[in-house]
């Protein structure tokens, strides 16, 4: 991981009126790294993600993606540059099948968004790619089911499939295991691990489930009340007293 | 020339005041409940007809006070039992519902009160002009503006200083947070709707004194109300107030120079606003979704 970083967030802050949700946070993620962002509730994690993915612009600071300043770019533009994202509350197309969900993502990724028709070769390639992505996320058996009717875990997987179809350089996962039982958590964790190891994807994820974090993460970033509290390997973070205090303090 | 201009500007202000009364009610309902009340004109007509029905018993002043309340109650019933069921859904459905109600009300008033227009008499003291220099300022028109002014002031005071009013304003900006704070959002919406309809009913009583009564008169006032809201800026009641006065006055001034264009000028202003400042004069960014 000594090449240029995929993501470099430089001292970003976000203010909503007088409320400071994120304050001077910096972070650097290298190629192929899996970074977990953790912190107590209200730490500003999702706001931080929103800044990275372009949901809204930062009040201060810069965001550099693949050596390119994307701070002023819209969410759509950042997606086009290779940022994929999933949401805390799964955002999918409920009344379309898994196949159709992934299809539109793949079509857009291939630049077919405005096309009235596809050639035979293009259609075939498209089909192959869609099946590939669906297989990667283990949903092949359910490809023709409506996503809105799937179990929660499968919906999450479908959302990840859509993000994958975009061929992202960076995958942002916002609480992928939220609302899941043990079995589903295990399956999603395995999926993420597979994507990380087999496809060498750079992943940043927000998580509350510590088992998942310690199982997957190369490095961990801890946020508390919008500020950067600590950064390091899982072992360093586990031993960090300030981190423990932040979590215990919130629980008390 | 100046008298003519003065006449028309004053006329414009009077018309504008009227648009304001209608538009404010529409705006209240739009802002909090995300509903375009197509039936707003219908409630205006109901208000006028109820006042007409009551005036033999309560007199002009009595029905002026009572009719809007009764109209608001009818509105409340419709909101509680029908519109409320549609809040979670696509805004299309509440739109269609009020659209359907507009038909029902227009035909219903025709059925109940007959297809002929009804003449409305106002108390003698109001019918006279205030002075012979300003012959165009009949007492009634001044009275109308006065009533509108009082209503607007009362509305703004209620919104600013009562608990319900503050909640309504907060709900317009962020309904989720208001709900999370434990406020009964459904009751709030009902109250808000009732206030909006009250204003429509009041408009109807006032209008009837000036224009007489007729089943279709409400629809003609719906479009200027829309324009007032768009021009003033969605989400802002003060904007609606300004918007209504602006188009009223513009309309009045245009009558002097180009009478046929007096209605068109409203649309021209709207188009200009949408081109130059799409969120309206006092509208806020991000209020458009």
């Amino acid at each position, binding site marked *: 991981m000594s090449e240029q970083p995929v993501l470099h967030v430089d001292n970003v802050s976000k203010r909503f009126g007088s409320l400071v949700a994120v304050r001077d946070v910096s972070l650097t993620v290298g190629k192929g790294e899996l970074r977990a962002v953790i912190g107590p509730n209200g730490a500003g994690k999702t706001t931080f993600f929103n800044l990275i993915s372009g949901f809204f612009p930062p009040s201060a600071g810069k965001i550099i993606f693949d050596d390119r300043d994307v701070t002023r770019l819209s*969410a759509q533009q950042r997606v086009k540059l290779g940022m994929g994202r999933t949401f805390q509350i799964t955002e999918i197309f409920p*009344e379309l099948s898994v196949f*159709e969900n992934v299809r539109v993502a793949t079509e857009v990724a291939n630049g077919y968004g405005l096309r*009235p028709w596809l050639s035979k070769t293009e259609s075939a390639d498209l089909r192959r790619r869609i099946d590939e992505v669906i297989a990667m996320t283990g949903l092949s058996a359910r490809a023709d089911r409506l996503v809105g009717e799937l179990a929660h875990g499968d919906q999450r997987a479908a959302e990840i499939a859509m993000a994958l179809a975009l061929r992202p350089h960076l995958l942002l996962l916002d609480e992928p295991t939220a609302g899941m039982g043990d079995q589903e958590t295990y399956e999603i964790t395995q999926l993420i691990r597979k994507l990380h190891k087999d496809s060498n994807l750079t992943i940043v994820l927000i998580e509350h489930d510590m088992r998942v974090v310690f199982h997957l993460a190369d490095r961990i970033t801890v946020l508390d009340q919008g500020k950067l509290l600590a950064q390091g390997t899982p072992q360093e973070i586990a031993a960090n007293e300030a981190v423990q205090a932040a979590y215990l303090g919130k629980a008390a | 020339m100046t008298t003519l201009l003065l006449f028309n500007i004053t006329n414009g202000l009077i018309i504008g005041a009227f648009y304001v009364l209608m538009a404010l009610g529409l705006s209240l309902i739009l802002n909090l409940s995300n509903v375009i009340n197509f039936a707003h004109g219908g409630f205006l007509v109901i208000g006028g007809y109820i006042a007409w029905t009551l005036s033999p018993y309560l007199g002009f002043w009595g029905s002026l006070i009572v009719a809007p309340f009764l109209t608001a109650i009818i509105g409340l019933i419709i909101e509680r039992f029908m519109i409320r069921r549609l809040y979670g859904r*696509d805004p299309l*459905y509440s739109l269609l519902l009020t659209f*359907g109600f507009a*038909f*029902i009300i227009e*035909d219903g008033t025709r059925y109940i009160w007959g297809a002929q227009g009804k003449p409305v008499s106002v108390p003698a003291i109001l019918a006279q002009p205030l002075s012979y220099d300003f012959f165009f300022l009949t007492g009634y028109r001044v009275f109308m503006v006065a009533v509108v002014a009082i209503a607007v002031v009362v509305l703004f005071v209620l919104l600013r200083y009562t608990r319900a009013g503050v909640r309504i304003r907060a709900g317009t900006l962020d309904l989720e947070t208001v709900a999370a704070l434990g406020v009964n959002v459904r009751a709030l919406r009902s109250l808000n709707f009732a206030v909006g309809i009250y204003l429509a009913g009041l408009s109807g009583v006032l209008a009837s004194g000036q224009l007489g009564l007729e089943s279709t008169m409400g629809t003609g006032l719906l479009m200027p109300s829309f324009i007032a809201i768009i021009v003033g800026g969605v989400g802002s009641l003060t904007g609606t107030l300004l918007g209504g006065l602006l188009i009223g006055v513009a309309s009045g001034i245009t009558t002097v120079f180009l009478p046929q264009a007096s209605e068109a000028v409203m649309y021209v202003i709207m188009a200009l606003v949408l081109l130059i400042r799409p969120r309206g004069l006092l509208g806020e960014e991000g209020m458009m979704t």
Partner: protein
Amino acid sequence: MRLAVVAGMWILLALAPFWMPFLGGYTALGTRVLVLALAAMSVNFLLGFTGVLSFGHAAWFGLGAYGCGLSLKFLAFSTPLGLLMGTLLGGVAGALLGALMVHRRGVYFAMVTIAFGQVFYYIAFQWSSLTGGDDGLRGFARQPIELGFLRFDILHDDRAFYYFVLICFAIIVSIMGFILRSPFGHTLIAIRENERRARFLGIPIERHIWIAFTLSCFFMAFAGSLYALVNNFADPRGLHYSLSGDFVIMAVMGGMRSFWGPLLGAVLFEVLQDYISSVTVNWMSFIGMLVVVVVLFFPRGILGLVRQPRAA
């Protein structure tokens, strides 16, 4: 199975002039309903498939009608030219104004579309020297179609005109279906399903909505042009938002999420309106009540009851 139903539908449409009289109908009624169905389907292209609520869409319909009528009256005695002029007038106006409106959503978009629609209504009303004002535009008629040595007298032959309209209907509807099945069409459906997710797939939302809007305006204007030919007449009511409301109701009644829903809705709505207005003078109340009932109890429309929600 679905193919059989659609095929059956086309057969019914093709044979309409023959079976309609048995049900108390007549060919010209069928022609009119077909045109209105096309309008309802054009609105639904935007409403049911892109998820955009345009409540002022009659404006483009009316513009198409006036464009066609004016062309036949002042330009040339040519039906195809009339259709072209009407379609261009409504379509181009829609494209230009659409650019102004496209950044809004939901009810605010609906409000602006209504207001702009009323501008055209007002113009048609006031500019009576050109448009005939409230009395409407008259003095033109659909011209027979000459194709080499073949002559289709659509002016005097009701049946010939019906088939002419049916062919036009088939062409436009095929284009619509084609677009909805294309990658571009998929992005529209995505926008309808979940705009935020569509944005985060990299779809330029406003641009796609504008294109969909423009396309639906062209379809609508074409329908309006045909409508002018139905009665050789165009009037301001064709521009009024209440007509827009009618089209939306047709789409909702038949089933917004289904391609053929609006056709069914148009047939039903017209038949009901015809029947009710012949039975009572208070037909407006009944239409209003019908709308209320549909909205409260059958929001998915008839076809929504019959089958599972599916994409096009």
